[in-house]
């Protein structure tokens, strides 16, 4: 019996230690920056702080605004993810994603940037469109 309780407690502790990204509940979670209900499954981002607190965003614009309001140390100790434009359940570390910015992409807060897991996906999407591919560093400097 004692063993079972101990096992249960251990399981609980381990659950609490999970610091991966959490799926966004579209239609009920709020964007931490603009306070809007997150609704568009093509866009989304998460910041997980060193303490494990999860902040969710509906647009890269909001993510960048949030990060710019914090200190560099805070940002460096956090994990930052964006969701794949093609798959709402796929989280990509922010610096590994490939981005497309252009007016064909219409995101909730006017960031107008789509994130892709692979360069192939991004190039595929870019075909015949007016915008271009960009990196996280450029986005961070160019978005609000």
């Amino acid at each position, binding site marked *: 019996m004692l063993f079972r309780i101990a096992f249960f407690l251990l399981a609980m502790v381990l659950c609490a230690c999970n610091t991966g990204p959490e799926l966004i509940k*579209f*239609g009920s979670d*709020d964007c931490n920056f*603009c*306070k*809007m*209900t997150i*609704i*568009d*499954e*093509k866009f989304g981002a998460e910041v997980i702080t060193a303490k494990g607190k999860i902040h969710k965003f509906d647009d890269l614009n909001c993510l960048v605004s949030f990060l710019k309001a914090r200190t560099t140390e805070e940002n460096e100790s956090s994990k930052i993810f964006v969701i794949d434009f093609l798959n709402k359940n796929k989280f990509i570390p922010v610096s590994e994603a490939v981005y497309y910015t252009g007016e064909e992409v219409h995101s909730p*807060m*006017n960031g107008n940037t789509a994130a892709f897991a692979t360069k192939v996906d991004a190039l595929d999407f870019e075909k015949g469109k007016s915008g271009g591919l960009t990196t996280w560093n450029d986005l961070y400097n160019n978005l609000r």
Partner: protein
Amino acid sequence: MRLLLFISFLFITMAGNSRSIFVGPNHTVKKISQALSMANENDTLFIDYGIYKEGNIVISKSLKIIGINNPVLDGEGRFEIFTISANDILLKGIVFKNSGYSSMNDFASIKIIDASNFIIEGNTIINASFAIHISNCTNFYVRNNIISGATREEQNTGNGIHLWKCSRAIIAGNTIKGHRDGIYFEFVTDSEIKNNYSAKNMRYGLHFMFSNNDTYTQNTFTDNGAGVAVMFSNHVNMIQNIFEKNMGGSAYGILLKEISDGLISKNIFKDNTVGIFMEGANRLEVKNNRFENNGWAFRIQASCSDITVIENNFKGNTFDIATNGSLVLNKFENNYWDKYEGYDLNKDGKGDIPFHPVSMFAMVTEEIPSSIMLYRSFMVILLERAEKAVPSLTPADLKDDKPLMKAVNL
């Protein structure tokens, strides 16, 4: 109605060379697409009662298209029904049903692109993703339409009336239900939203983004998922609207974020979780509003400045004002607060001691939202009393120096 049609028909036939073309099962022209290819500029199409399944119909001529006895255009769940890119259009009295959904393109029942001087009037739109989608247009009316969305998954539903990069629009007398946002404005200027009824939409009854110099008056927003949002805009006036029954963890009568230079006057905020939530707002006047039976009447974040709150009635709210900091750059004056316990010895109608509308517990819940479960417990009431005697947590400067003894007559 028939007579009216006949008269308008006469006028139309008399004015210049324009013709009338009748479409319907009992007329020689059976299909709308056929009539469109026959029509010249400025002709009138009368669509008689019938059910039309013609897929996507593109209209690129200036025409009047008028339904007789509510003809039904069915998109069969696959097509955008009308795609319009011509000036001087009149679209009236038609029922649009079952337009399609696409995750990449915003399929709409009526889509209008790059046009000006048109009227969309008295149509009924049922079970659409986007109902009316207008982009890059100027000078138009959307009035007296009845729009009711499908109860499909929220994220797959579009907006009822969606305007993008438009100016000089008048949106009046429409009823909108069951969409993502009832009315959505993005980059829309010099426009008016009047007398609409927006209810049971999944997100916002009305949603403003980056839209300046607009006015909305006499609308009713009720029972929407998250109320109304006015964001990143300036010079927006909100007058005589009713915001009610917007309830939920992140539901607000109005959510105001990053907005400046507006007037919020003569509105009624009733039965909302939060009446007004304000963040990053500047130079707004909140005057002559009624806040009744809300959880929080007014949540004003410390990032707001030069907000004037005068001559409002606060009645039956759990919390009147809540804030998240001690810095106060806003003015509260001559409001009626039903929680005011002061006296008026000189009988000038104004209380002799200031009223502090922020309760200690409102400050605590702002920091730790889940502490709300302790509300009305003995300890909290005790702390509340102690705070009143010796203020420590609540911002001392947030006060109404001249609270009214009697409610403003509104």
